[in-house]
């Protein structure tokens, strides 16, 4: 059947839609990060009254705080590890290529924190390659790419503002905490808090020979 080009093109695009899961992730991304001006809240309250405002606030809290579907029961460290590992595997292009933290700081000016060097990694012989804007659990993050000088392969190091309301309790290095290690997708993800920032570092499992008969 022949149709005008305009109609055919419109239908071609309208057939493409974000899935419910994708929409929920984007909603959460915006809900966590959108600033809420006090003036606007007051106007909303005066227009719709306290009961409705409380109900809406409660609904929003449920939407934001409870992730959808089967991940409800998954511990936060595993959710972080899954997200970090998934993005590590994608190896998306870097926004900025630099071998030093000054270059990183000059680039990441839209974050509400300053990327820092980790004391924990000071002796790890990691060479910085660059970074890109990203997020963990919808909180804006710097995704840095590093490579170990003594090992092949690339590693991903996330840094994000440590939002306890989002991430829950995590080991704080300054308090003697030891990084949590989670294994997902063939990748070990170490997660810890240092200098008020959440860190997550990937390390791909070593290629070990498979013994005959295994």
């Amino acid at each position, binding site marked *: 059947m022949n149709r*005008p080009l305009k109609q055919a093109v*419109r239908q*071609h695009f309208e057939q*493409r839609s974000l899935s419910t899961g994708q929409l929920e992730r984007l909603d959460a991304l*915006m809900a966590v990060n959108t600033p809420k001006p006090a003036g606007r809240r007051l106007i909303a309250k005066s227009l719709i009254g306290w009961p409705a405002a409380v109900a809406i606030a409660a609904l929003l809290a449920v939407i934001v705080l409870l992730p959808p579907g089967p991940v409800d029961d998954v511990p936060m460290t595993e959710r972080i590890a899954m997200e970090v590992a998934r993005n590590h595997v994608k190896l998306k292009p870097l926004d900025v290529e630099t071998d030093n933290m000054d270059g990183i700081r000059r680039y990441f000016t*839209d974050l509400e924190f300053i990327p820092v060097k980790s004391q924990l990694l000071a002796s790890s012989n990691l060479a910085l390659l660059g970074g890109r804007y990203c997020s963990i659990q919808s909180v804006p993050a710097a995704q840095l790419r590093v490579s170990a000088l003594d090992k092949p392969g690339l590693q991903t190091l996330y840094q994000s503002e440590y939002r306890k309301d989002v991430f829950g309790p995590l080991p704080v290095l300054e308090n003697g905490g030891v990084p949590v290690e989670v294994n997902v997708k063939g990748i070990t993800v170490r997660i810890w808090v240092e200098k008020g920032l959440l860190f997550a570092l990937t390390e791909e499992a070593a290629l070990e020979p498979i013994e005959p008969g295994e």
Partner: protein
Amino acid sequence: MLDRPVMQGLFRYGFSLTHDEDTAYDLLQDALEISLRKAPDNADAATRYVQRIMRNRFIDQYRRDHRHPTVSFDDKQPVVIDPRVLEDIVIAEHEVESIMAMLEPLERELLFLWAVEGCTAQEIAERTDSPRGTVLSRIHRLRQKIIGQQARAGSAAEGGAS
């Protein structure tokens, strides 16, 4: 905060550039992450702002991936034509996918802005930071490309039938 219909529209805009749903989602997510701190309060302005980030990021990436790009992002050869030249093209339903696959990203973007968002040539020029003459030139080439593709497909079909 953008509502869901707006996000669907932005996703489709991303699809017009990337021609791949996963990449379009990544592009939208990246743009939202960058835009959230600075996006204007006005919903329309915020949508345009996100769309602009998506476009810039896509072009940056495209340039990185294609050292010898087959599409020019900067052509400035105005051609005086009627901007309605696309209106009279009629295509068969099965031709849409092959035409979309054949087009360059900015040609698909142009089609999207024209067909889905209902933009005029002037509005497309403003949305894409291009001179109106450049947009008209692209429309002209787009028409030739689509008609050429239809003619090739027609010839192939006739050859197959004989």
